[in-house]
């Protein structure tokens, strides 16, 4: 089946709910209307109103409620309508979700997934464009995954739902419908914590994820530069090894992300390369990122996003420095 990313989300949810009775889906507008992006389409019809539930407008209760339900033994997969509305539930993530296993020495756990569309570029209102993976990946006990292709979306979401730990699943809404590919049939899992090398090369390592993958690949493809392109896929835990091995080979690196530059995931990647491959570096690692500003409202949001020429600029800097 040819599918988009949002269809892959839907397919993964259908599959998970079929295979495991404990999977329960809830959130705002996920049941009757099938989600504002239709990611949960037809789940209510297929699995009934016990397992697919519209909740009140309550992000704290959605995340905290999922945590309690997971402690009880279910496998909730909840939707936060836009990632800009996860911050009200930040405390539940920090104080409960990420700590249930730790607090009870493994006696209780919180295997659950918080799905949410993230990122700019869909001409939406304020608070609909943020990428805060940098803050979430700072919380011990949480995992954070960001797919960039339909197949990975299916595979990573499937893995996230099965994962024994809580996973924040950030869906690149800007490319929800812009890529279409054949989805692996049936039970397809892509393990969390493993980056994918999208293109092998010797000249420079370029790391990106989520909605930044297409412009990154475009920049590289158009340039003719022999870049190695890594799709990080999971932000936490991070696949340091794949990145470090690549940088040891290329000696140069560029990180591309949407979120703010300061304390963004790019900084952590630089820190880890510093730890393990500093002496291989032939040039400073370049960061091509969102600015340390609020994401502009829709009329100017294009300016904020890393686009191929800006990414290429970063690559060329890394190559010439």
């Amino acid at each position: 089946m040819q599918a988009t990313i949002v269809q892959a989300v839907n397919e993964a949810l259908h599959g998970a709910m079929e295979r495991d009775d404990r999977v329960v889906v809830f959130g705002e507008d996920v049941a009757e209307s099938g989600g504002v992006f239709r990611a949960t389409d037809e789940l209510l019809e297929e699995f009934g109103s016990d397992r697919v539930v519209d909740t009140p407008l309550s992000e704290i209760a959605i995340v905290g409620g999922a945590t309690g339900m997971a402690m009880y033994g279910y496998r909730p997969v909840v939707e936060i309508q836009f990632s800009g509305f996860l911050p009200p539930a930040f405390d539940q993530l920090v104080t409960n979700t990420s700590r249930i296993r730790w607090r009870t020495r493994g006696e209780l756990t919180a295997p659950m997934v918080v799905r949410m569309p993230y990122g700019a570029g869909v001409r939406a209102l304020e608070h609909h464009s943020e990428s805060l993976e940098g803050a979430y990946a700072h919380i011990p006990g949480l995992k954070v995954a960001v797919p960039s292709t339909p197949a990975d979306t299916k595979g990573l979401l499937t893995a996230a739902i099965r994962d024994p730990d809580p996973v924040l699943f950030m869906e690149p809404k800007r490319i929800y419908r812009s890529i279409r590919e054949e989805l692996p049939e049936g039970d397809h899992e892509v393990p969390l914590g493993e980056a994918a090398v999208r293109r092998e090369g010797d000249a420079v390592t370029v790391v990106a994820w989520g909605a930044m993958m297409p412009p990154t690949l475009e920049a590289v493809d158009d340039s003719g530069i022999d870049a190695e392109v890594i799709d990080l896929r999971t932000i936490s835990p991070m696949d340091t090894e794949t990145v470090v091995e690549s940088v040891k080979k290329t000696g140069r690196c560029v990180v591309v992300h949407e979120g703010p530059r300061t304390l963004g995931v790019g900084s952590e990647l630089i820190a880890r390369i510093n730890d393990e491959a500093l002496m291989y570096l032939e040039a400073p690692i370049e960061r091509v990122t969102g600015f340390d500003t609020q994401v502009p409202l829709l009329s100017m949001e294009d300016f904020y996003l890393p686009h191929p020429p800006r990414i290429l600029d970063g690559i060329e800097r890394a190559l010439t420095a």
Partner: protein
Amino acid sequence: MSDRESDRRVPSAVGDGGVGLLTQADLSVPTHQIVDPDGSYDPEAVPDLSAEELCDLYRWMVTDRVFSRRMVNIQRRGELGTFGSTRGQEASIIGSAFTLEPQDWLYVGRAWTPMFMRGASMTDMIHFWRGIETAQQSFAKQNSQIAISIGSHIPLVAGLAWGMQLDDADAVATAYIGDGATSTGAAHEGINLAGALSLPALFFCQNNQYAISLNVEEQTGAKTLAQKALAYGIDAIRVDGQDVLAVYDAVQTARERVKDGNPVFVESVTYRLDAHTTSDDPTRYRDEEEVQEWEAKDPIERYRSFLQSEGLWSRIDHDSIVDDIETEFDEALATADELEERRVRELFAHVYDELPSELSRQLEAFEALLEERPEMDDYIEQRPKG
């Protein structure tokens, strides 16, 4: 069972062990109404408004309706990012906002015309939906703001009211919220703070029956939203949101009390006739029948019958009101369309009072890049039309 406090009323439900349960059935929440759906009313109950003011109410309601219609239309033409229509809620929106004074603060959810009533232009509102940052600046000049993150503004409104209290201002801070917003932790904490500190805050809740697809009956087990006020120890009024005079009367009464430091929660029972926003498809979650029922409760029609009964209808030239609004909209749209090209620096302005050096570096590098790589133009576009 023995009750230690002097009770005015025996609790209605009794548990197994003879334990008195407090239930919603113990509560009676009337809904204030002045003009009946059939058009009848008690003249004594009509608020003390001049003929001109009564006509103004009509004009503003029509403005609200026409504005929504035009905005939906231009969105369909691709000239707006998205838009949330207020059709059906005109009495609720206008009756309430008509009570506000310029020194009051207004922080709204679904309610746009109040910004015009306070002096903002339709251009500003078109800018807002086109994602142009100056819109909220203009609203701010009128002590107004629009909140996008549902419920998040309620603590701000409590804080504004607290400022007014300290300042001994003759003003109130008003939050417009929806039925969905009542479920948020932010709403709870903000309203409770107002109650605990007796802040001059007015909470105007438009219960339009839906939060996107969720019916209010699934939003909460509470039978009315008004009764939530009791949780904060503040007073409430429930009002027929299709009856502009009742809404005006209720909010006016509320405002008077609020000014004296008695926060009030007003539930206005209304209905969103159009989609949640232009990206929503309401047929997925509600019946045409229900919509028809509420179409029949059209607030503008009801008010027209009142004006007719009062002999005021003759003073109103409906068509010319509509024409004027259409013209105003056309002009506003033309002005909005002429938006000047904006500078990249604007993205970095107002993050802080002074640009920190790291941000300067980012700005300079970006400006240089735009200079050096004209191909950036293939990817970035200023979208004056959203």
